[in-house]
Every structure is written in structure tokens, then in C-alpha cells.
């Protein structure tokens, strides 16, 4: 499971819905795996305002990842404008093209770090624990089990 998904998942129990501590779920005994994927600048820009940044920082800390800045990057922080003098052949290959034909937008280091954290860092094994009810959701082969026994629905 990607850390992106963990930034949106809540406890599935109905009684936890109203409790703020049912988000985020806390990874325990987590085994992480990096699964590389193509950086998508437009997607990062889209998702950025929806992230819960301080919760993301907290989860990163719990997982022992390098600490994140206190405030989230801005959309502008995600792009490096290539200088016009620079020949395009030495710039980073990128599939993301800016609309309007102003040439390619180059993802900044901030964008690359965010992509690595949200979309490539995955929880392969372990469990996710609700901070409110303590329910543990097992993660196996990257798949979290959210099936609840009938009496907890």
C-alpha cells in the first residue's frame, strides 16, 4: 500500500467515523518496499491540496523515514523552469508536457521526493492500527484487509 493511500484511509468501523483519532491509521511492524513508477507532475499538483501534511509527517516519523518540512510544498515548488539557454538534451527526460506549448516542465527535486514518498514507498507487510478503537488491519503482500467481522460493521 502506497503512503498516498494511507494518507486517505480511515478506520472502517462505524463507531470510529466521528472520532478524529481514527485517522491516520498507524503502521506497526511495517516492512517497506520501494516500487518505482513514473512521476506524474499533473497528478502531484492535483493531489497536493488534498494531503493531510502533518499526518503525513507523523507517519513518516513513525516509519523512520527522513523528516519532512513543517509545511507542505506549494504547487510552484514542484517545477523547475528550465533556463532558455540550456539545451533541452541535457534536461531530465520528462513525459509531462505543459499545455499551451511553452515547452516541458521539469519536476523539481521537491516533486521527485514527494513522488518517491507518496507513490513509490509502500507498506508490504505489517498492520495498520486505529488510534481510536485499536483495531488492527493486517497488510499482506501490500494488500490491507479491511473486512470487518459482522458485529463491528
Amino acid at each position: 500500500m502506497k503512503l498516498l493511500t494511507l494518507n486517505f484511509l480511515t478506520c472502517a468501523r462505524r463507531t470510529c467515523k466521528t472520532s478524529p483519532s481514527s485517522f491516520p491509521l498507524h503502521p506497526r511492524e511495517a516492512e517497506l518496499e520501494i516500487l518505482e513508477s513514473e512521476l506524474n507532475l499533473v497528478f502531484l499538483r492535483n493531489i497536493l491540496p488534498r494531503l493531510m501534511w502533518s499526518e503525513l509527517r507523523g507517519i513518516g516519523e513513525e516509519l523512520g523515514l527522513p523528516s519532512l518540512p513543517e509545511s507542505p510544498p506549494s504547487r510552484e515548488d514542484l517545477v523547475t523552469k528550465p533556463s532558455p539557454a540550456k539545451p533541452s538534451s541535457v534536461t531530465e527526460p520528462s513525459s509531462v508536457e505543459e499545455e499551451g506549448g511553452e515547452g516541458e516542465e521539469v519536476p523539481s527535486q521537491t516533486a521527485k521526493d514527494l513522488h518517491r514518498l507518496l507513490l513509490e514507498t509502500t507498506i508490504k507487510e505489517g498492520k495498520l492500527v486505529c488510534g481510536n478503537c485499536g483495531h488492527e488491519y493486517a497488510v499482506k503482500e501490500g494488500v490491507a484487509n479491511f473486512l470487518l467481522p459482522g458485529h463491528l460493521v
Partner: protein
Amino acid sequence: MSRPEDTLPPDLFYNDSESRKYTTSSRIQKIQSDMTRRALALLSLSSPSLVLDIGCGSGLSGEILSQADDEGTPGGPHVWVGFDISASMLGVALEKEVEGDLLLADAGQGVPFRAGTFDAAISISAIQWLCNAESSEDSPAGRLSRFFNGLYASLRRGGRAVCQFYPKNNEQKKMVSSAAVRAGFGAGLLEDDPGTKNAKTYLVLTVGGGDLDG
């Protein structure tokens, strides 16, 4: 042939051999991918989005969601999260190394995401299962209500969902769409090839919008 949802709950029906049969039949794959493309056209996403796939099965729709705009997926590639009640279907998706995240979850228990998570949601041939109550402590109405309430909350304002499903009859069609409306959705039912054995029903849902033509 009896309808699978009339015989067994999906987690029992889609055991390993059924999952494989389901995903290797090229005829079914073709129908599934046609319906996914139709649903995506109805979603009309214009840029890479976060999409929920309800009843993602072995990831047939997910593979399309992961394709780029120039490969035929409008606004793609999208990032998706899929959930399914069948562990063996998800096992097939894992083997294929699909790009989306997979959750073992029952849509009839709700949608465990915080408010405003997804840009859109898609569901292909899944939500008719919600009309089956698998235990004495649960009812189709309860399952439909938990699902649509959860889905409504998990979509961002202005978001859309398209659920293709196989209603058993008109009554079931009405039961499903009225459950969606009660959850707050603007809802429209769209039928392709009506009155034929290839009839396909799409429930088109909008959040914070009016009813759609359908």
C-alpha cells in the same frame, strides 16, 4: 445459467478457479474493458486523477485507468485504489502487478476513506452483489446505504461516480438508484442496448450537482 450472485456470496463464488476462469476468458475481458471505457467516457476526467475502483476484481479496469491519455484513457494515467471482497481475485491482480493499490474490503460495509478523497469512482459489474444479504444480521438496504453514504462522503465536491451493474429486475434497479439518491447523489440511469440480452445499465452519480440526463 443461474446468476452467480443468486448462488453464493462473491468471496465464496470467486474462489481461485473461478477467478482465473473469469479473468482469462477473452470474451469477458472484452466486455469488461468496453464497459470500463464507456464508464470512463461518462466520467469525463480531463487530467490525472485519484480514482476509486469498487469491486476491482483482478484489475481489468485498473489496467485501463493506469493508461495514458494517448493510449485511450481520457485524462490518464490515473492513480487508483481498488477494493474487492474476493482475496483470490486480488491475488490475480497482484500476479499481474497492477499499479493501483488493492484493499480486501466489502463495499457493503462502507468506504473507509476520509471525506473528499477521490476525484471519481468507477465500478464495473459489482454493485448488484450489494443486493444480497449474506447473513441474518444484514440486509440489502443496509448494505446499499452504507456503501452509497460512504462513497458520497469519500468523493470530492463536484466528483462523479459511474457504476455499471446487472440489476436482476426493474425493482432492483430502482432500489439501487434510490439508495444513491438518499445518500445525496444526483443520479441518472443510462441503459445501452436496452431490451436485449446485452443490455448494460450504468448508474451515473454526481456530488453536489443536479440530476444528469440519462
